[in-house]
């Protein structure tokens, strides 16, 4: 192309720019401004978003899902009002024997003082992150806890659990507890043996949430809401304790 002719070309604008092109541009921006600087120091573009999906190993790249159905959950964190309906639904559906710190999902709360003298109150739902590289599965001496090869959900084989509690110490999310009723460790399993086994498509905590905080689904299904939220370029996605390298399948965003 003759460079002198460039000025005669009509500007196409950015309105019709496909998201793939934008992502490539952002990636280029990262490379130019220097990945070694963390990619955020000099870049004038929304690099944190680009880095989140392209450079942050905790967020899966599109198509990198090793299971037949790869279930995950996205929490739209700022929608949560802490009503705890999800916790009640979980207890009822999965027959969680409450007491002695027994829960499969809970809501964490944080108060942050503001300059105005008031406090900002935030809620954060948490449950087993069904990690791709789960510390609990690695440490279990008897394979009592394992990744279901069909769904990627981490499940328990109660009869094999020796109650050593190493998985509890290993979990970055405090997602496990010892169930005295089961004589084994208990944990969230995305309702695999209750609702999913009955043909339902959603977990108890998802259907009970009045604020549509939790989005559950198959990350491999490109038409699913979770897929779209996770891969929408503008969405800033994060995970809890990415430093542990567990590659969780529960993601967080504000929407």
């Amino acid at each position: 192309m003759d460079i002198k002719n460039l000025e005669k070309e009509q500007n196409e604008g950015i309105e019709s720019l496909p998201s793939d092109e934008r992502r490539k541009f952002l990636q280029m921006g990262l490379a130019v401004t220097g990945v070694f600087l963390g990619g955020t120091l000099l870049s004038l573009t929304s690099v944190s978003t680009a880095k989140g999906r392209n450079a942050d190993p905790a967020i899966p790249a599109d198509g990198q899902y090793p299971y037949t159905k790869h279930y995950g959950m996205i929490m739209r964190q700022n929608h949560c009002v802490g009503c705890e309906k999800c916790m009640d639904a979980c207890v009822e559906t999965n027959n969680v024997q409450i007491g002695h710190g027994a829960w499969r999902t809970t809501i964490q709360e944080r108060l942050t003082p503001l300059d105005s003298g008031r406090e900002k109150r935030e809620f954060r739902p948490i449950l087993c992150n069904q990690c791709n590289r789960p510390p609990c599965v690695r440490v279990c001496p008897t394979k009592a806890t394992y990744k279901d090869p069909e769904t990627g959900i981490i499940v328990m084989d109660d009869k094999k659990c020796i109650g050593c509690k190493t998985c509890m110490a290993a979990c970055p999310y405090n997602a496990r507890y010892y169930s005295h009723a089961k004589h084994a460790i208990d944990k969230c399993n995305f309702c695999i043996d209750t609702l999913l086994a009955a043909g339902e498509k959603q977990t108890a905590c998802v259907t009970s949430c009045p604020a549509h905080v939790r989005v559950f689904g198959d990350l491999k299904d490109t038409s699913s809401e979770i897929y779209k939220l996770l891969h929408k370029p503008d969405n800033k996605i994060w995970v809890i304790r990415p430093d542990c390298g567990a590659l969780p399948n529960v993601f967080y965003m504000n929407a």
Partner: protein
Amino acid sequence: MANNSLTKIFSQTEDTRLATPGINWAMLIFLIISIVGLGLGASSFIVGHEAVYNNTREVPWGLIIATYAFWAITSTGLCIYAAISHLFGGTRMAIVSNRMVWMSIICIMAAFATIGVEIASPHTMIIYNILSPNLTSNIWWMGTLYGIAVGCMILEFFGLIKGFARFAVVFGTIAAIAEVFANSCLGGVFATLPAKPFWYGGQLPIYFLTAAFLSGAAATILFNYLAYKIRGVEMSAAVKSAMHSAGKAMTLVLILYSVATFWRLIMFFVGGTELGRIAAEALITGPLSFFFWFLEIGIGLLIPMILIIIFRLQNVAIMATAGFLILVGQFFARYNMVAAGLLVPGTPGWDNAPTYLDYVPSLIEWAVIVGSIAVVCLGFLIGERVFGKIFDQKEHH
């Protein structure tokens, strides 16, 4: 028939000097304490662990796991020193190595007894450790290797009694190798958990092995000192020389271990994650500071170091005192390590979590620990009474 042959063996090994009412009473008292202490722990199988132990969802381990680690590490140390003496001979410590093998078996038994009342379903472990092994699990390797080690040590000890030198050396060597790997895996149980930055990292398994050499040397001196004390006889020059060698080893490892402790803590204050630094602060200024400064550092490292510097390993009683203090310090070092890693909430800032979670061992947890100490005391006396003759040898194979 079997009874006759056992009687024959024991008649060749027993030390009749210890067939006294005093020793018998002591053995009975230790037996009662161990049954009561471990029995209180075993009550958890009936009333539930949550009813008797103060562990929680957030702090799933505590004093009992620390005690298990302490006995297991001490057993490893004793086994290694004994194996080195048996394998290479010629070392001054060889003369007391049979006693070290016996006490290594006893210490690992105390460790098994302790963890036996901590694990919620130990019967399941016996079945599924074999039927469904997870080869990526440090716990599986640790349990399996300690199991192999204790089996080999029992065979080794049988060889020592019967005078099968080669047999004893082979199984003693296998036992020592298994103990080293088991000890390494015990360190790995903690060191491979990124969720707990205070534990995570390559240093811990080496740190545990260093602790084994320290505890093993300290235990060697203490048990030999006590063995002569209860008989009311003087150590021979050769045994004194063995104690001097063990004292040298203890001093050297005491220095190495102190250096490792220093750097291990410093690392948390020059970078790394916030959780690791908060855990280290639990020891320096936080809820574990008394246990750390007074018991782990003061009693367990500084005072023994001062005793060694002043008395220059010349006095066995002083060395035994230093050894005892080191073992006390090592016990609390294990507790501090376990507790500091778990007292820090995993997601600070959320749920108005305190900087440090609340965990104080229950009285029954302490009873289990006293019970495990009684197991070791009882095992020591049984060993001296039944096998005393083979514990000190003038000449070694």
